[in-house]
C-alpha cells in the first residue's frame, strides 16, 4: 500500500498517526508535523480529536495532586502583570441576568474582548476617549467603540460586517449587578454614533463592559436582549 496523500487508502495510516500523536509516542518533530497538518486538514484534525475523546477515560489514572499555592500567583503574574491578586472588581461579570442572556447566543459566538493597552499611565487624561474593540471568534462582525466623556458621544465603527439584512445591532452597558441597559440601536452596515443618556454617562468608565446583541430591525422589542450577543468588550483608556 502506498502512502498516497489523497488516496482512499490513507485512512488507516491517518488513524494510526493520529492515535500515535494522542498516545504521545512520536518524536517532537513528528508531533509538530501532526499539529501543522491538523491546522490545514480539518478531516485529519477530527480524527485526532476523536482519539483524544476516546482515550480520555485513561485520564482517570491521574490521581489529583494539588500544586503549591505559589504556582497560581505566578500564572496570574504572567498573564496579568505583577500588580495585584484576583480581580477586586465590583463583580462586573457576576450579573446572573447577563449570563442568562449571554447563553442565549450560539456557542459559536465565543466572545472576545480585545482591549487597547493603556499608554496613559495611572491617571488618564480626561480628554482621551475610551476605546473598546468588540469582536467575536466567528468574525462576522467586529466593532470599534469610542466614547467621549466630554460630550457623551459613543461612536461605533463596524470593522467588518456580515450580511445581516433586516436586523439591527443593539449596544448594551453591562452593569455589575442588575439588568444590562440599552445604549441604543444601530445598523450593522454602517458606522453610527449614539448619544448616551445622561443618567448612564457616569457608568461608562474604564472597565465598563459593553456588549452588542443582534436584534430584530429597530432593536429589542422587550427592552432586554433577545438575540445572540455577537460581541462584547471592556472599555480602556487607549
Amino acid at each position: 500500500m502506498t502512502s498516497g496523500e489523497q488516496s482512499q487508502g490513507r485512512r488507516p495510516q491517518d488513524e494510526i498517526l493520529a492515535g500515535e500523536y494522542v498516545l504521545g509516542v512520536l518524536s517532537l518533530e513528528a508531533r509538530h508535523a501532526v499539529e501543522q497538518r491538523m491546522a490545514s486538514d480539518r478531516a485529519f484534525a477530527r480524527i485526532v480529536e476523536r482519539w483524544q475523546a476516546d482515550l480520555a477515560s485513561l485520564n482517570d489514572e491521574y490521581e489529583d495532586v494539588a500544586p503549591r499555592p505559589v504556582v497560581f500567583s505566578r500564572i496570574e503574574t504572567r498573564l496579568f502583570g505583577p500588580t495585584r491578586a484576583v480581580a477586586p472588581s465590583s463583580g462586573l461579570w457576576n450579573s446572573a441576568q447577563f449570563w442568562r442572556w449571554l447563553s442565549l447566543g450560539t456557542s459559536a459566538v465565543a466572545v472576545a474582548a480585545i482591549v487597547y493597552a493603556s499608554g496613559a499611565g495611572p491617571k488618564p487624561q480626561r480628554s482621551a476617549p475610551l476605546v473598546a474593540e468588540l469582536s467575536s471568534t466567528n468574525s462576522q462582525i467586529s466593532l470599534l467603540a469610542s466614547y467621549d466623556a466630554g460630550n457623551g458621544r459613543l461612536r461605533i465603527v463596524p470593522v467588518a460586517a456580515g450580511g445581516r439584512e433586516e436586523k439591527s445591532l443593539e449596544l448594551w452597558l453591562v452593569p455589575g449587578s442588575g439588568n444590562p441597559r440599552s445604549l441604543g440601536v444601530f445598523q450593522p452596515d454602517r458606522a453610527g454614533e449614539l448619544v448616551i443618556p445622561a443618567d448612564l454617562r457616569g457608568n461608562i468608565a474604564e472597565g465598563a463592559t459593553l456588549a452588542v446583541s443582534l436584534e430584530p430591525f429597530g432593536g429589542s422589542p422587550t427592552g432586554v436582549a433577545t438575540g445572540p450577543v455577537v460581541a462584547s468588550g471592556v472599555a480602556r483608556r487607549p
Partner: protein
Amino acid sequence: MQNNEIAALINRVAIGDRKAFAALYNATSPKLFSICLRILKDRADAEEALQEIYVRVWQRSRTFAVDTGSPLAWLAAIARNHAIDILRARKPVAEDLDDAYDLADDGILNPEQQVAMADEGRRIDNCMQELDSVHAGAVRRAYVEGLSYLELAEELKVPLNTVRTWLRRSLLKLRECMQR
C-alpha cells in the same frame, strides 16, 4: 465539579473573566498537575509546565467548543501535549520516517459517520479488554506516562519494531472496536 460547570467556566474565561479563571484553576489544577508530574517525573518541572498550561488555557479558551467533547478532556489534552513536548525536547527520540504501515484497512468510519453512534459507542475500557493484555498495558503506559516507542521497548524488553507494531495494531483494533 460537573462537566457543564467546567464548560461554563471556560466560556467565561474566554471573555476575560479572571474570577472564573481562578475557579477553573481551583477545580482542575490538581488533575493537570498530576498529569505533569506523571509525565515529567520532577516537581519543579511539573510546576513550570503547569504555569505554561494555564497560560494556554487562558489564551485558547476562545477555541473551546462544547460540542468537541468534555471540557476536562480538552484541558487534559492541553496538559498532556505540553508535558510530552517538554519530555521529547528534553530527550529527543530518533525516528525513522516511515517504514510502511503494512496494516489492512478494516473499514474505518470517518468521524462524521461515527457521531451518530457515539452515545451507544463502547467506552475505550471495554475495548482495551479485547486487546492482548501485554499490548493493552503498553498502550496504557504510553498514554499515561508519555513514553516514546524506544522507552517502551526498553521498559518492556522487546525490540523497537515489535512494540511499534503492537501499538499500531492495537490502535486499529481499538478503532474497530469503538465503532462496532
